[in-house]
């Protein structure tokens, strides 16, 4: 008897269908990253053209205190944004996740609208509020006509407000996903075993929802580090972050090799964060 052909091994026709996707990923994900790395070791001539040599000069410049401080500041802002998003978003995610079915659905829809609205529009909304002649100062002058008002626009506070406002929904949704999967029996068991609300929260609920927090951090921290649009709009040129510097090297200063080196270091930072968060999320998912 002839055995049936193995249906699981691709033959030439399946390989032919796979080719476009493999080619796409190689051409537009692998190759650009490789070329970026090559560029980061190159130099540029006086008119901004790239000279293909091997030099560590760009990396020496990246590790100059000026740029290290910018990196540190970017990580600091993104970190602060992430912490605020977790603290503000966790109770919301918890509330939605534990709500009754019909309410849960309504609250989720309510959360979807800001989530799907372009971050540019949402950032612009804050500009209209925080600008010197904006709504906040208008309201203050309405109450106290002699008050000087705040000049919040183009300050670090404005940048963090903009970042939190843009990324908060992306923290709430993954945490909600974890909270929804939470087994109520485990919480009751902890109560029955004599744990107080605080203890239940810190030793049962938090560890069980850690994958959600890790996923949310990935969606908030990583993009926030490299974000230049919100920081441009809310911070002006006064608070340069790593995204602004990279953007500037490519489009204004036209020092592509240096921009590539900054990008390569940022990529390393991103890979490290991703790896840590992935391990954190995975360990809590199957505690084997």
């Amino acid at each position, binding site marked *: 008897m002839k055995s049936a052909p193995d249906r699981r091994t691709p033959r030439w026709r399946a390989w032919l269908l796979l080719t476009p*996707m493999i080619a796409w990923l190689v051409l*537009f994900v692998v190759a650009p990253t490789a070329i970026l790395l090559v560029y980061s070791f190159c130099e540029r001539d006086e008119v901004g053209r790239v000279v293909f040599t091997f030099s560590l000069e760009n990396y020496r410049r990246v590790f100059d205190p000026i740029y290290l401080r910018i990196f540190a500041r970017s990580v600091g802002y993104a970190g602060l944004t992430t912490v605020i998003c977790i603290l503000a978003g966790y109770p919301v995610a*918890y509330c939605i996740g534990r709500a009754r079915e019909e309410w849960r659905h309504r609250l989720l829809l309510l959360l979807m609208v800001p989530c799907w609205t372009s971050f540019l529009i949402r950032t612009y909304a804050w500009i209209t509020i925080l600008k010197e002649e904006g*709504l906040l100062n208008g309201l203050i002058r309405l109450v106290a006509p002699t008050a000087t008002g705040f000049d919040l626009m183009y300050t670090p506070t404005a940048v963090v407000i903009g970042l939190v*406002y843009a990324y908060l929904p992306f923290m709430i949704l993954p945490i909600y996903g974890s909270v929804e999967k939470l087994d109520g029996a485990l919480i009751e068991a902890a109560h029955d075993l004599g744990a*107080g609300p605080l203890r239940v929260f810190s030793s049962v609920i938090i560890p069980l929802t850690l994958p959600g927090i890790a996923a949310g951090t990935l969606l908030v921290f990583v*993009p926030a580090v490299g974000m230049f649009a919100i920081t441009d709009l809310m911070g002006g040129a006064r608070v340069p972050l790593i995204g602004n510097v990279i953007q500037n090297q490519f489009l204004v200063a036209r020092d*592509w090799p240096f921009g590539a080196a900054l*990008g390569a270091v940022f990529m390393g930072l991103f890979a490290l964060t991703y790896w840590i968060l992935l391990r954190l999320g995975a360990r809590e998912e199957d505690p084997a």
Partner: protein
Amino acid sequence: MPAAPTFPARRRWPSGIRIVDGAVSTWTAVVLAFLYAPIVVLVAYSFNQSRLNIVWQGFTFEWYRQVLQNSPLLRAAQNSLVIAVVSTLLSVLLGTVGAWLLHRYRFAGARTLQTLVAVPMVMPEILMGISLLILFATVGMGLGFTAVIIGHVTFSFPFVLVAVQARLRGLDPAMEEAALDLGATPLQAFWLVIVPCLRPAIVAGALMAFTLSWDELIVTFFTTSAASATLPIRVFGMAKVGLNPMLNALSAIFILATIAFVFFSDYLRKLSR
């Protein structure tokens, strides 16, 4: 007939929990208000006659009229639409076929491929932007529509692929086997049996791809030419200059479209259940 099982009366939660519950609900309301208040203000002031935002000087549609007569903005909206539609179609094609092949076949390198697919989903947009810019410069390809669409497909198709893969995992493998045993070619089995089952996931993935492309700023920023500037590029340029009631009006139109979109996708989701 067995009696319906009786459940013990719901255990009384410690009173502390109820206080916490109240606080959590209140906080949720506060956060939702924080998320909505700026949007509401933005929309309200799009009807204000004053060019500056503080003082309410009366109701007007003037800014909407100006938006609809502003040819660079209309051109940008058209560009955005073309780019979003083309990149959605390509993403759906690439993502659906890719998900099916990764699900259906076992081969060396499948895991690597799966990891590689996830990279554009999580990679910071600015890195994708600059690396694509360098690639296009290296191969001597000019920036513009093609470059922007390539960028958009690269970060959109993995979302389609993941959505379709999730659906495939829940699919009975016997369906395809039955089709094959009844004499269908693998291609016919895919097209006539599998694709109809995947429709909800494909629709969800397509909606995702469309929104991602429509809203994208960063990758577009590095790959666009002046002629292919999308709506987000123009809005970014305008917002950098300062307050402009036309932006309020444009934003209001966008927000209305977003609300309609959210309800539409919710409706589609209900239909497909």
